[in-house]
């Protein structure tokens, strides 16, 4: 409405070229316009009507706009500067991923300093708190799924995978040797040991996961602005994706080594690293709207682990002893072979999938709104 003051002044008397003055007055509009209709719409918004156009010796606003469009020099247009899209930086959302690590550390400490019934309560409270903390992290910030994507039902399988890291290997060895005779006592020793170091490391790794995802998204967004074509963009983002993944693995290794040293437990490096890689890639894909592949892969992985356990128990049935042979062979080769192999294959599949999908420009479309 700031242009109301220049309305309908019309040509100054005696001016040889009345349109020139109008062109000067609406120069921005005419330079910016991509077709004459845009100029016509703009002129009308500034209050110019057909009767005003008649004063410029035109039949209507459209023909006046056509003249203006034709008369604007369009050769030396400076290229439209692409404003760098400012990444939404939410400090709280970047600090929030520290929460699961803190909760998990507190729970592990509580488990170590309690016994009997109290330990059971402490374990239950720890699991509950960890669930809530993880939900908070996954709802907000870099790891959250875009609003329009369907929410995949992967929580159950994710919990199974983490549960297996905590208890699974112990159960598998007991099952092979004829157990278990009693529930786990919640310590690292005993007949059914709890391996808390991997879980603690994974909980702590939420923070590097969120930060590296944020780094990747920000980098991709910057590349979007500077790329000339889609191929160019894909070629420049793929190394960034691999770098991000390597950075996360490095951080996870460091965290696991530290956690194992603090808890005086052996560091089950292959199993934890593959599981961490799997969960990180699944979340990275989901955060960019690709929910189908992570869901399938997580389900298959957990299914494979369930099957491995089931075959060992099924081998106790008469005549089915041969069922447990593959798992026993694997376990004899390496005690943590089952989780390492299942998660490793799954993580590799997802890595290939992610390196094809995430460097595409369509993965970085502005998210739609949810209902």
């Amino acid at each position, binding site marked *: 409405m700031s242009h109301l003051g220049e309305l309908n002044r019309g040509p100054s008397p005696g001016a040889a070229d009345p349109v020139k003055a109008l062109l000067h007055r609406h120069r921005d509009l005419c330079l910016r316009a991509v077709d004459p209709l845009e100029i016509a719409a703009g002129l009308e918004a500034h209050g110019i009507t057909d009767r005003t156009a008649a004063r410029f010796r035109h039949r209507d606003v459209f023909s006046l706009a056509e003249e203006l469009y034709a008369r604007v020099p369009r050769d030396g247009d400076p290229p439209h500067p692409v404003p760098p899209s400012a990444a939404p930086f939410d400090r709280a959302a970047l600090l929030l991923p520290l929460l699961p690590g803190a909760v998990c550390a507190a729970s592990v400490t509580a488990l170590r300093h309690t016994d009997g019934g109290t330990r059971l309560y402490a374990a239950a409270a720890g699991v509950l708190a960890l669930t809530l903390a993880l939900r908070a992290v996954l709802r907000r910030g870099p790891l959250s799924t875009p609003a329009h994507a*369907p929410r995949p039902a992967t929580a159950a399988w994710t919990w199974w995978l983490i549960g297996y890291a905590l208890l699974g290997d112990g159960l598998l060895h007991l099952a092979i040797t004829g157990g278990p005779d009693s529930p786990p006592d919640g310590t690292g020793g005993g007949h059914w040991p709890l391996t808390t170091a991997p879980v603690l490391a994974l909980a702590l790794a939420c923070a590097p996961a969120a930060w590296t995802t944020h780094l990747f998204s920000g980098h991709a967004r910057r590349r979007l602005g500077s790329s000339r074509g889609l191929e160019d963009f894909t070629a420049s983002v793929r190394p960034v994706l691999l770098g991000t993944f390597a950075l996360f693995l490095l951080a996870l290794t460091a965290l696991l080594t530290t956690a194992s040293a603090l808890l005086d437990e052996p560091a089950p490096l292959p199993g934890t690293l593959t599981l961490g890689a799997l969960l990180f890639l699944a979340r990275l894909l989901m955060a960019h709207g690709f929910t189908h592949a992570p869901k399938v892969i997580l389900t298959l992985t957990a299914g494979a682990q369930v099957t491995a356990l089931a075959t060992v128990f099924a081998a106790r049935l008469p005549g089915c002893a041969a069922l447990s042979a593959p798992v026993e062979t694997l376990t004899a080769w390496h005690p943590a072979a089952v989780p390492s192999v299942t998660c490793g294959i799954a993580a590799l599949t997802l890595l290939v999938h992610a390196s094809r999908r995430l460097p595409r420009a369509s993965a970085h479309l502005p998210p739609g709104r949810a209902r």
Partner: protein
Amino acid sequence: MRIGLLTEGGYPYVGGDGWLWCDRLVRGLDRHEFDVYAFSSGEAQEDAGWVPLPGQVRRVRTAPLWATEDDGVVFGRRARRRFREHYGELAAALCAAVAPAAPEADRFTTALHGLAELARDEGGLVSALRSETAVRALERACRAPGAQRAAREARVPDLLAVAAHLERALRPLSLDWYEEDGLGAVDLCHAAAGGAAALPGLLAHHFFGIPFLVTEYGVRLRAHYLTRPDSPPAVRSLLAAFHGRLAAETYRRAAFITPGNTHARRWQERCGADRAKLRTVYPGMDPAPFADAGDSLREADPHTLVWVGRVEPAKDLVSLLHAFAMTRAAEPKSRLRIIGGPSGPEGAAYLGHCRTLAAQLFPDEADGPHTVGDNPVSFEEPGAPGPATSADAHAAGAVTVLSSVVEGFPVGLVEAMLCGRATVSTDVGAVVEAIGGTGLVVPPRNPRALADACVSLLRDPERRTRLGAAARARALELFTVDQNVAAFRGLYLETVAHTPVRHPVLDDTGDPLPFAAPAEARVPGHWTTDPGPRAVPRWAMDTPVPATETAR
């Protein structure tokens, strides 16, 4: 007759655009059935709920255009190839540097129909429209030889922006409305706006041959030009091409196009609407609240000018105040009442500015040395202290003044006409069209001319009465709900009369039943009920024997 009413962000939601005329139309045509297909414009609107629906509305189906719902439809190889072809055609049609009248229009139509058929076969397009295939097709079309200059400069973010916008604009394609018992079952579609609302009508026409009407009170294409002035040129040119071609296609397929005023009509003609299909149908207003005011012309204070409306800079009250200063120099007894609240913060600031100006221009005046003074210009909010209705507001003065510099269809002016008031208005928007010769019209931003016109009317009560009566007669003839509804009723019947019966009725074995749907099935009301004993003329009863059997 069964009418599919297509709306966007309006009826049946409370307070949407143009819900009032849709409501009056549906209530006015109670002998027809209505199926309402509505797009909501936002979450707030969905929460606000619906207006009470009359019995003739048989069904309401809604869809949000603002929310993306990933349908999770995964295309097979063949569907992917079809999508790539059609979307590529669409993108090529948008990038081509030729006017929309050229073969590009056909290309656009073919691509649109191809995508619609694909969506119908596969169950949805949302994922595909957001996929890499779509973005790549856009890039290829932009880099192709013969593309517009602006499109050739498109960068990756521009391509993504265009893809996202096209996904939103093509969302109506993915809906499940195009079934035999959905839009296939109506006799006629009536789109209450152009653009997205007309798209289902276009597709129903394509799939089932259902004729459709488009009503536009404001041209959608024009609104699109004004909505994103800051986008890069590539985005604007591609989206302008899309909306331009969609509008052209809509106008080409529509049975009738009904602009709400000449301004909309000119834009439609410009975008390729055939003049033979254009019927201007003015918005209708309910004359009942203004009937009393129209009859009580004597009660008005003969020295009072009234301005009624929402206060905003485009109304140019400053010019009005200057004009009033000149009027008052000629007619010292005259007063000005400005009735209306501010619209938005900008309007509030402008109102404050106008109050200050009025205080500076006109000192308070009193009748004698012992009475309290008063300003000849009063600012009143409608409601508690001021006049309760807009009829009361217009009735308060002898002359209604309109001083806008930008105006669409001047509803306030028509209200004044219905009240039988003489008017002085500026020559903007559809003012001249509405007022005809029944009021004084002056150029905008010309306080001197405005003042002269006001003075001439204030001094001549007889002319005032004559003009007011003429204005009232004109408004009652052209701008009432009845004429609006009658115009649409006529258009519906005319449209359906041109359309052959399309619904084949099948018998038990699946064979078509000929003559199962007679032409009378479209007559409003129950045509099969017995109307009672017929009046037979006496001459017909007096001659029971046929005259000559052999003559036949």
